[in-house]
């Protein structure tokens, strides 16, 4: 896989490249480079720790959007078996930015739904960069209702810059579709786990995000508006996005502190993109635990817990 690094990753990637080259030389014949390789590996590890243990909120944003980060379908492939994709909202179209279907998670039949981003240019356009139209949210809701009808838990994997802002989207009621999903999700009688695996972009994310549990990978972000959008409105300058990211507090750590996220899911050192399999297995373990807890609850308890969870969120005073 071509490895595309974001700026702050480059020094680490450089060293790794050097190690790789040395290995090739060593295999080629005779030269003893073990010592040098060990030295470089140690350096790479130290550098990785230094960089990743104190990432700024903006750096995490770049990781959340990393071009080689695992996407929804990657996780489905790595965490579930027998995925059968189901298409269309039965009203207007099939939205390729939104994927959903039946799958088995460790033997449990679950409905899995999420936004899908594209890898190459053609794929990105096909997936509309993971930005769904109303028909995408309506498809998602149709599948959630189907899961509820047959008592199957729902797993949503959230990764979107936001709901698509376009003419067709407005004509077909983007606001209504997002509102409707929250409204209907609140009273679904089956367990719903939402995991933010990359970008949790505002209403477009929340439309899949009203869960009994909200999990968030450690380099994912979740915000009311993109850092660029916030910067352009409040600072009148998109270049101030890093400041906006800091001010809005959009990381998993921040959201756990605000009571919005229930658990932070660890990623492999250096980010999920460095080891898709390991990232998926870390996520799977956390989902499994929560799914077990929720499946032991009655439908009434499931609904009450979910509504109550959102009822508690907010910081205000009473004068």
């Amino acid at each position, binding site marked *: 896989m071509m490895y595309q690094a974001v700026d702050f990753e480059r020094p680490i990637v450089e060293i790794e490249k050097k190690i790789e080259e040395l290995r090739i030389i060593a295999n080629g014949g005779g030269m003893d480079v073990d010592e040098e390789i060990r030295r470089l590996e140690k350096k790479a590890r130290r550098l990785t720790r230094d960089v990743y243990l104190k990432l700024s909120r903006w750096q995490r944003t770049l990781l959340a959007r990393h071009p080689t980060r695992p996407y929804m379908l990657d996780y489905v492939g790595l965490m579930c078996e027998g995925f059968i994709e189901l298409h269309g909202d039965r009203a207007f179209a099939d939205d390729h930015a939104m994927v959903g279907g039946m799958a088995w998670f460790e033997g449990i039949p679950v409905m899995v739904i999420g936004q899908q981003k594209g890898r190459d240019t053609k794929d990105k356009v096909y997936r509309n960069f993971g930005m769904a139209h109303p028909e995408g949210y309506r498809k998602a809701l149709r599948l959630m209702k189907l899961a509820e009808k047959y008592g199957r838990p729902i797993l949503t994997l959230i990764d979107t810059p936001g709901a698509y802002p376009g003419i067709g989207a407005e004509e077909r009621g983007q606001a209504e579709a997002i*509102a409707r999903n929250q409204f209907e999700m609140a009273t679904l009688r089956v367990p719903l786990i939402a995991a933010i695996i990359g970008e949790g972009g505002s209403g477009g994310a929340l439309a899949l995000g009203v869960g009994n549990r909200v999990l968030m990978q450690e380099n994912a972000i979740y915000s009311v508006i993109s850092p660029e959008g916030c910067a352009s409105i409040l600072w009148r300058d998109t270049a101030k996005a890093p400041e906006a990211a800091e001010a809005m507090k959009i990381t998993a750590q921040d959201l756990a502190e605000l009571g919005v996220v229930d658990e932070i899911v660890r990623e492999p050192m250096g980010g999920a993109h460095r080891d898709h399999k390991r990232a998926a297995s870390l996520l799977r373990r956390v989902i499994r635990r929560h799914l077990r807890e929720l499946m032991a609850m009655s439908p009434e308890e499931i609904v009450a817990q979910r509504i109550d969870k959102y009822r508690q969120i907010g910081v205000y005073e009473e004068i």
Partner: protein
Amino acid sequence: MEWFKKIKPKVRVREKKVKMPEGLWVKCDACKEIVYKQELEKNLNVCPKCNFHFRISAWQRIEQLADPGTFVEFDQGVASLDPLGFKDSKRYKDRIKENVEKTGLNEAVICGECQLGGFPIQMCVMEFAFLGGSMASALGEKITRAIERSIERRMPLVIVSISGGARMQEGVLSLMQMAKASAALAKLSEQGLPFISVCTDPTTGGVSASYAMLGDLIFAEPRALIGFAGPRVIEQTILQKLPEGFQRAEFLLEHGMLDKIVDRRDLKHTLVQSLKFFLAEPVEKGA
């Protein structure tokens, strides 16, 4: 007379005039006609010449809708804090303070109980002058409490929305209020209690993508801007000019997103008739 046209007063000047409380005359934003202020007010702040609906305050709206002397406010002490310690060009804390002083409100919504054509209801009316009617923790809390009061007291709910969207200064907490209010509305709906949403100019972003679009009935004032994304964001995304009338109430009606566009002067009557339809005992004629 080309040269003469060019010295028309600019928008800014006009706005100032509209806001001047002691002014006797007001210039209409739409038809530019000069209107006698008293006449305008008597007409519920709708231009008598062209029917342009001037923006009104939450208290004015309540006065227009609630049966006289019946409105009792609740939760007026619920106020915004600054959970993120947010600062852009100004500190969020200072912004709140300024807006409290400017509007006399603690948050961008007034919630209470009143009678509407004799029906006891819960009513929430948003205030644009308070930080653009933006969605925030305190606002979400007040709306949610009003919904819960509707359930407890078995009363219908009317929300009059006006909002520029989310309050970025509260970050994701602002977003979560959408889910909080929507979840409460789901409970209200299960109880079979009517919820009527009235969208006024503008109703966009987080408010439109939650309770404003979840009414059993959704009404809007003529020409109100209603949508998910703001027109500027859409223009920047698709790099095209937007069609005339895009995201206006008439556009939404055309696309099946509204039940009805209601002239402000008919709003009370339409609300009362709707409540009658949902709640009044049927009376058989000629029986």
